[in-house]
């Protein structure tokens, strides 16, 4: 998330030292407007149509909607937690140490961001699914079944979304001067204390930015989830899946609209909070 850039390019329709609204700005704005309209209008249309037909109240009590929302929030929070726990050390390792094959590993970790989620779904099925080689072993020895459970939803989200955090956190750690850590060590402070008190606070904007991207990706996750976890209401049917089901089946357009509005509002709120948090931590360091 480009917090610094948005700060320095505060929308003031003039270049530094220029007071008049110039022709350049006019053309920039005019061409930018095309994309602004394209991106914003459909979102407003959802909002407008839902409010106009006054269906939100009805669907807010709908168990399909409530369960989907609850499931989405729980699973994304879990995948976020797993991402932080396992992604942070990995990002630090990639940022601070050189080892053979590091470039290849780095690229492999970026891959889930580029691949279509359906590939992720297939990949997860043949490894962790009931007949996948890890899944079969888990079921035989521990009676653990992952495929088509809530756990599978979390894993699908983790698979497609964790790389965003790893990438951002790695860049954040790299930007922290390692001599700060070495000097902190000579002062008698343990590596863990230095990590918590020096490295993490300084990398915090990047860590938070990575978290937002990861959460957003996890919340929107559809393809891998429907293939690996299925579409069972209350168990694996997250918001995106519920919207799809509503359009396809019983709920109809109105249910899909209500679900979409909720998703838009929740996403907007979370993004806004995270952005101001990241900005606050950046400013606080200066």
């Amino acid at each position, binding site marked *: 998330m480009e917090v610094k850039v948005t700060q320095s390019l505060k929308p003031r329709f003039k270049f530094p030292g220029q007071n008049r609204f110039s022709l350049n700005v006019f053309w920039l704005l005019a061409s930018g407007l095309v994309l602004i309209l394209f991106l914003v209008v459909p979102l407003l249309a959802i909002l407008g149509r839902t409010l106009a037909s006054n269906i939100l109240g009805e669907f807010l009590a709908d168990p399909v909607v409530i369960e989907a929302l609850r499931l989405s929030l729980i699973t994304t929070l879990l995948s976020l937690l797993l991402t932080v726990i396992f992604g942070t050390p990995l990002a630090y390792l990639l940022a601070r140490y050189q080892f053979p094959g590091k470039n290849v590993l780095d690229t492999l970790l970026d891959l889930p961001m580029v691949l279509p989620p359906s590939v992720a779904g297939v990949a997860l099925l043949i490894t962790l699914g009931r007949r996948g080689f890890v899944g079969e072993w888990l079921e035989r020895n521990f009676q653990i079944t992952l495929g088509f459970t809530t756990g599978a939803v979390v894993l699908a989200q983790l698979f497609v979304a964790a790389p965003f955090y790893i990438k951002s956190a790695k860049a954040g750690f790299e930007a922290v*001067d390692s*001599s*700060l850590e*070495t*000097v*902190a*060590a*000579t*002062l*008698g*402070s*343990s590596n863990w*204390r230095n990590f918590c*008190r*020096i490295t993490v*606070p*300084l990398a915090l904007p990047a860590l938070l930015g990575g978290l937002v991207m990861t959460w957003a990706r996890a919340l929107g996750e559809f393809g891998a989830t429907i293939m690996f976890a299925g579409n069972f209401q209350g168990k694996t049917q997250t918001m995106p899946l519920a919207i799809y089901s509503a359009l396809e089946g019983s709920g109809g357009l109105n249910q899909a609209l209500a679900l979409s509005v909720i998703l838009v509002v929740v996403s907007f709120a979370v993004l806004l909070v995270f952005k101001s948090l990241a900005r606050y931590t950046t400013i*606080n*360091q*200066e």
Partner: protein
Amino acid sequence: MLEIAIEKKLKNFELQSCFEFRPEPGGNNVLVLFGPSGSGKSITLKAIAGIFAPDSGRIVIGEKVVYDSQQKINLKPQQRRVGYVPQNYALFPHLNVAENISYGLIGLNRSEIVRRVKNLLELMQLQDLEQRKPRQLSGGQQQRIALARALAIEPPLLLLDEPFSALDANIRQQLREEMLKLSRRLAIPIVFVTHDLDEAYVLADRIAVYNQGKILQYGSRHEIFYRPNSEDVARLLGNRNLLSGEVLEVNSAQKQVLVQLAHFQLWVDVEAGQVFVPNSKVTLMFRPERVQLLQPLDEVELFGTTNYLKAGIIEEIGRGSTHLLKMRLLDESTSDLPETKKIGKIELEIEVSSQLYDQLALHKQRDWWLRIDASQIHIINQ
């Protein structure tokens, strides 16, 4: 006390650092590691601090062995707790001055931390800045905070890596003086890395001269500046007055030797332990500020005394308080020496105070009799 003998193979050279530093009472407590950049000074410092591992060797700080490759001892930086100030200070940008200084004060109670921080702020004259962030402060203030942070843990040794190199000249001089006072007062031995000759001279009790990973010479400031053990050391210390010659005669007690250089001869005092034999090749060196301008050449000639040279000023550089004169030795008009021994273009550098420069009207009077006292010439075998 600091004892170090380490080796490390690096990309461009092999580092071999070996010396023993015992601060003497009445001294500055400062050991200067001097040398051009990339000669192994900073790496040696890091090895002492424990943030860079040598291949082999031994490091002892005080009575504590912190590294010994044979006994497989390699203490972590946290266990060594030497005060280390890197070249860029490495202040924690998100912490304020007080938090920076108190960072290493772990496990002390609140009032003790407050007391120590307060003392250090006073010592470093940073009293009103405790709430500021490093980037709101000047370079000199940042440097003091880094020093205060290192001193807060009451280290057995202070390691400073070119601490003043990023500062303006006038601040540098002021901080240098402050540091001298501080080091005498705190009685903590300081290892100071620099490539600045003036800095080395002002601060050092002892100097280790580095080049290409090796220590060329280790000794007192006087030894290094006036008795370099090789031409390389003399050159690294900015001495351009190097003359090669041949021993003509050695007086009976090995107290003085007479050296033939091109068309002239100089008597040179021999130091204890030095031995010279006639006809051996030697190099003479002397500091530019130790050459006397005796009298203008067109005045009466001098006969019967020794160590005189004739020279003319060919170039000069005003440096404020001093003038550096480049002088070329003038040929002996009556010389009947063979062509090979004829004087080429032998040039000397001579430093005179600006006061003397004006008194002698050196801007007009260019040709002079010079004298170099036998005691001021350092001689080494080639």
